[in-house]
């Protein structure tokens, strides 16, 4: 398995956003799945996060305009859900599950180990922008605890050694 890095578009390039033909074509396809325009909001936000790496205020305005909603409405949705990044994420976001089954099977040790190895606290990015640690709630993989999700991929039954090897691999590729 090789986890693809996130390539976040710098904020200055996302102040005013215009969707290109590819993105616009995919938005039109998404709209055809629902009887209302608003229902395409989550899928369109996912599309934008895939393209730009995060949801900047400029992206919020562009999505709002495209779907005929106010920026406040779109922002309200973006900030309700935990998975939309509202500032540029690191290339690899290490999401450590904190909930009970993982917590009693070594999840806390994984988190503390990451904090020590990377020299940053949960919620923070490393200075080189390579890694970011996040404590997250139940990932739905409790039978293979402890679990860390890196970007889109699950890494299960982790030990400190396997976590170190994973970090080495990800760092080596960048």
């Amino acid at each position, binding site marked *: 398995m090789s986890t693809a890095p996130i390539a976040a578009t710098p904020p200055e390039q996302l102040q005013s956003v215009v969707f290109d033909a590819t993105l616009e074509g995919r938005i039109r396809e998404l709209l055809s799945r629902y009887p209302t325009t608003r229902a395409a909001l989550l899928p369109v936000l*996912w599309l934008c996060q895939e393209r730009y790496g*995060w949801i900047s205020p400029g992206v919020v305005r562009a999505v709002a305009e495209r779907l005929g909603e106010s920026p406040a409405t779109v922002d309200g949705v973006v900030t309700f859900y935990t998975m939309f990044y509202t500032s540029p994420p690191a290339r690899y976001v290490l999401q450590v599950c904190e909930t*009970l089954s993982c917590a*009693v099977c070594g999840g806390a040790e994984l988190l503390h180990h990451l904090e020590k190895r990377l020299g940053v606290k949960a919620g923070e990015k490393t200075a080189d922008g390579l890694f970011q640690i996040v*404590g997250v709630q139940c990932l739905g993989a409790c039978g293979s605890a402890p679990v860390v999700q890196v970007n889109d991929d699950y890494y299960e039954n982790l030990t400190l050694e396997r976590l170190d090897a994973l970090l080495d691999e990800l760092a080596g590729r960048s």
Partner: protein
Amino acid sequence: MEPVLLRARGVPDSRAVDTYLSAGGYQGLRKALLLGPDAVTKEVLDSDLRGRGGAGFPTGRKWTFVPKDHPGPRYLICNADESEPGTFKDREIIEHDPHMVLEGIAIASYAIRANTAYIYIRGEFVRWARILEQAIAEARARGFLGPDVLGSGYGLDIWVHRGAGAYICGEETALIESIEGKRGFPRLKPPFPAVVGVFGKPTVVNNVETLACVPHIIERGAAWFASIGRPKNTGPKLFCVSGHVRRPGVVELPLGVTFREIIEEHCGGIRDGHTLKAFFPGGSSAPVMTAAEVDVRADFDACAEAGTMLGSGGVIVLDDSVDMVGAAANLAHFYAHESCGQCTPCREGSDWCMDILDRILDGRGRAEDPETLLRICRFASQGMTICPLGDAFALPISSIVKKFHEELESAIRRAAPRPQSKLPVLPWNGPRPGFGA
């Protein structure tokens, strides 16, 4: 028992449509199209299938609530949000047998005369959303989905709709709001979704595992399904066992086995050198059970009689190393994080429980804390909130306060912070990624 829902686990290339067909796949759908919608519903009613998402409501009855004379569109939603802590069964079905889910969706949609179905899958399950999308494309290419399903004239489209990180969206009305592009705020019921659901139209929301049972019921008959398990608690059930057992994972067993059988015979028992202390029988929102209650039967009615819930079948097993006050604090953090914030008893109550439990763990407990916790829990449950998230935090926390009272009392008496190594609870991590970075 022979595996039903997990029959594809271990089969090479099990996700491919041809593998599914060679195991007899899509025969249920063929039969359903010949039977007609009402006969399909009757078969599911007769099977006594109860919803596997947590509530255990009879599935066939849910379908009959859709008004027959409704002129406009109606919708079926497959709930793949799988967000209840301790639950990881839907992922297992999708991983090995996505077409079983699609066939169940097709039959259920046909029964309620819906031409559009959505699969709402939690945002983190990127891999499994892709698996479903690929299976949908295959099924469409073979005529099991699309404008004219198997030449019957019945049309069905299935779309995968990804969530974006919110426990609450597993609740069916919050899920509906989320599909409509809104914040996942649960709706007041009534009206129930079967009458006023997504886009204001009649909607049935069924769990992945529930729908995966449907093709088997149609193909083999209601009597076959009802012969598994116990009366009114019929069929195979997936139990997700996590925590301190030797072999955690998903096991398929008839409803009505005891938790002792699940833990000891099917999951290898408690890890070496330790004994069972407590377990959550049906996800973390169910009242906790002690080791003395391990002979309770794992079915909807037996769990209710024992004062707990079968819920989603997520069995979280805790051994004697676990500090139950820490476990309560861990769950309080979860619910405080996941409360949508609409209702005061839930939003404030989960937060207060978290603060009190953290304070106790920090060696600053007060004699009145147990009573305060119980009072907060009482105020947040039994109809005081729009959705059951109030109950969901109140039940596990109040049950720990009651069943592990002495442990709580001694934690309150201790005047020093608990050693970090003893805590199965992690610090509150504050802002999510992106915030203020």
